[in-house]
């Protein structure tokens, strides 16, 4: 499977700004197929875990009101070369994880 997480992390004065986009449909379960009137079942990311150098930094719990292909940005302390890992888990049990170095 293609990578689902894109991460950009850069450091300025000891402060690392991380920007990431996860490829995910984030289906709310409220949308209907127009022709049949059937509801599209919910499919959304429930949890995102962020770590820096294998130490957990942030845990995000998401509901259905987060946009499709979710964007997540945050700031942490760090240095160039630190390893940022972002992993996600959705309501169907799918998951993925990607790492990137701080630039």
């Amino acid at each position, binding site marked *: 499977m293609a990578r689902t997480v894109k991460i950009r992390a850069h450091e300025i004065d000891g402060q690392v700004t991380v920007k990431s986009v996860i490829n995910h449909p984030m289906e709310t379960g409220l949308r209907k197929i127009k022709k049949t009137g059937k509801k599209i079942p919910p499919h959304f990311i429930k949890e995102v875990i962020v770590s820096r150098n294998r130490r*957990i930094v942030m*845990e995000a719990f998401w509901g259905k009101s987060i946009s499709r292909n979710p964007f997540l940005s945050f700031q942490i302390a760090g240095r160039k070369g630190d390893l940022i890992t972002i*992993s996600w888990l959705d309501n169907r049990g799918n998951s993925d994880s990607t790492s990137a170095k701080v630039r």
Partner: protein
Amino acid sequence: MKRRTLLKASLKLGITGMLFPGVALSDYPTGAFLAKQIPDALQAAFGTADIGESQQIEIEAPHIASDANMVPVRVKSGFDNTESISLVVTGNESPFTAYFKLYEEQNFVSTRIRMAESGDLLVVVKADGVLHTNQRPIRVGRNSCGA
């Protein structure tokens, strides 16, 4: 039912256990996400719906969002020792939108949210064990999503 919860638990341990041994992670706040009313959601998430307002929480969001499905939101907490940042959207079918638990010294979170209709974005910040809240009205365009 038991088997199912067990399965879920093992899945979570699968991805987290390998990466971060010895870290006790918190559970998904199911009650808060299922709540249809904001007081119920706050009660489920924090144990109280009575939270004091504070201008030290900075919320950056468009006054009028062109796409209701992608409303960019930036939140900055002005408090030291910020433990968590939560987003609640009035008017959505499930108002509780996101809960960010912060483990290191950090005070900024940005993401994109859906809004079913024009309403307020409520941000709840927990810092030093005390809850604070602030809100911003956001108007959205016509093609809303129903979330």
